[in-house]
C-alpha cells in the first residue's frame, strides 16, 4: 500500500539520522492527513477532538518520526494517532482540562480545522453516494437513514418497525457491505 500511495519516503520506512524536515512532514500530511483525521473521528466521534489529536500526531512525527524502525509511514501514523487518541480520551474522562498550549493552538488553528473537516466530505462523493443509496432495497435504505441520519439506535428502529433486532442489524450490515463495496470501488477507479 505504501509503495504506491504517493508516500514521499517511498520505502515506507522512516530511517533517518536526523529529524524529518518540516517539508517532509508537510508532504506526509498531504498524503495521509485526510485519512488520519477520518480515522480519528471514527475513534473519538468528535471532529474537534480528532483534529486536535491529528495535530499532535504530526507533531510527534516531526519530533520522533525519524526514530521509527521497521514501520511503514502510514502504519506508524495510525498507531501513534490511536495511542494519542486513547490518551486524549483518558485525559478527558478524568475530567482534566486540556493544557493551555493545546487550547491556544486550537484557537489559532480554528480556520484550518474547519477547512480540514469540511474537506473530508466532498460534494462529488455525496452526490455519488446519494445515487448509490437509491440502488439499495427500500428497507435497507430506511435502516441506514434512521441509524446514521436520524441517529436512532438499532433497538429503537426495530421497535418502530416491529421487527426483530436481528432483522434490522442484517439490513444495516447488507447495506453497509454494498455501499462500501460500491463506494470503495468507484473511489479507487
Amino acid at each position, binding site marked *: 500500500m505504501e509503495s504506491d500511495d504517493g508516500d514521499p519516503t517511498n520505502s515506507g520506512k522512516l530511517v533517518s539520522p536526523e529529524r524529518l524536515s518540516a517539508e517532509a512532514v508537510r508532504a506526509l500530511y498531504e498524503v495521509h492527513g485526510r485519512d488520519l483525521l477520518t480515522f480519528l473521528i*471514527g475513534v473519538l466521534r468528535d471532529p474537534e477532538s480528532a483534529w486536535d489529536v491529528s495535530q499532535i500526531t504530526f507533531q510527534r512525527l516531526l519530533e520522533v518520526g525519524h526514530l521509527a524502525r521497521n514501520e511503514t509511514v502510514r502504519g506508524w501514523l495510525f498507531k501513534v494517532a490511536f495511542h494519542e487518541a486513547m490518551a486524549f480520551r483518558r485525559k478527558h474522562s478524568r475530567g482534566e482540562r486540556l493544557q493551555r498550549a493545546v487550547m491556544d493552538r486550537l484557537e489559532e488553528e480554528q480556520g484550518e480545522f474547519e477547512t480540514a473537516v469540511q474537506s473530508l466530505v466532498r460534494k462529488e462523493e*455525496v452526490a455519488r453516494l446519494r445515487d448509490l443509496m437509491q440502488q439499495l432495497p427500500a428497507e435497507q435504505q430506511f435502516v441506514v437513514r434512521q441509524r446514521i441520519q436520524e441517529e436512532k439506535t438499532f433497538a429503537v428502529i426495530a421497535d418502530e418497525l416491529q421487527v426483530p433486532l436481528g432483522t434490522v442489524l442484517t439490513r444495516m450490515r447488507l447495506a453497509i457491505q454494498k455501499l*462500501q463495496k460500491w463506494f470503495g470501488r468507484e473511489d479507487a477507479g
Partner: protein
Amino acid sequence: MSSKVDEDLNWLATQYVLGELSGADRESFETRLADDLAACEAVMSASRLMLTVQAVSAPDPAVSTPATNPRRSARGAWAAVAAVCMAVVALCLIPFSTPDTVESVASNDPAAQLVSLWRTGEVPDEDLEDVDDSVDDDVAVPGWMIAAVSLEAQAKELGGRGPGDGIDGASGKVQEN
C-alpha cells in the same frame, strides 16, 4: 476487501464507529486497533462512509467544497435574496421617484398622471385639462388608487390645507367615473 474476514472486520468497524459495541467488545477491538493497520483502515473507511451518508441528508450549503464556511454561505444566500428584493423594489419605484420621468410620463399616461397627483399633490395647470379628458375615455384605474386619491383629497379639504383646487377637481372627476 471482499472476503468473509474482511466483511466481518468492516462490520465490526462500522459498529465501533456507530458506538454500538458493548464494553467488552469495544475494549477488545481497541486492543486490536493499537497494533493492526487493517483494523485502523477499516475504521477509517467506516468513518468516511458515515460522514458521507450524514452529508447526503444535509442541505446543499452544508456540503461544502474546501474552505467554504456553511455559515458564510447561508449569509451569502440571504444577502443575495435581499439584493434581489431591493432590485425589484427599486425597479418598481424608478418610474415614480424620478422627477423627470414623472413629468414625461404624467403628460402622456393618464394613470401615471393620477399616480403623480397622488404622490405629489400637484399637477401643472396645463396638464389638468388633459387629465380630465383622458380619464373620461379609456383609463382603467385600480380601485385602491381611486380610493386613496379620494381619501387623501378629502382629508386635505377637511384639514383646510392642500396644494389647491386642482387636486379636488381631479379627484372629483375620478370619483364620478
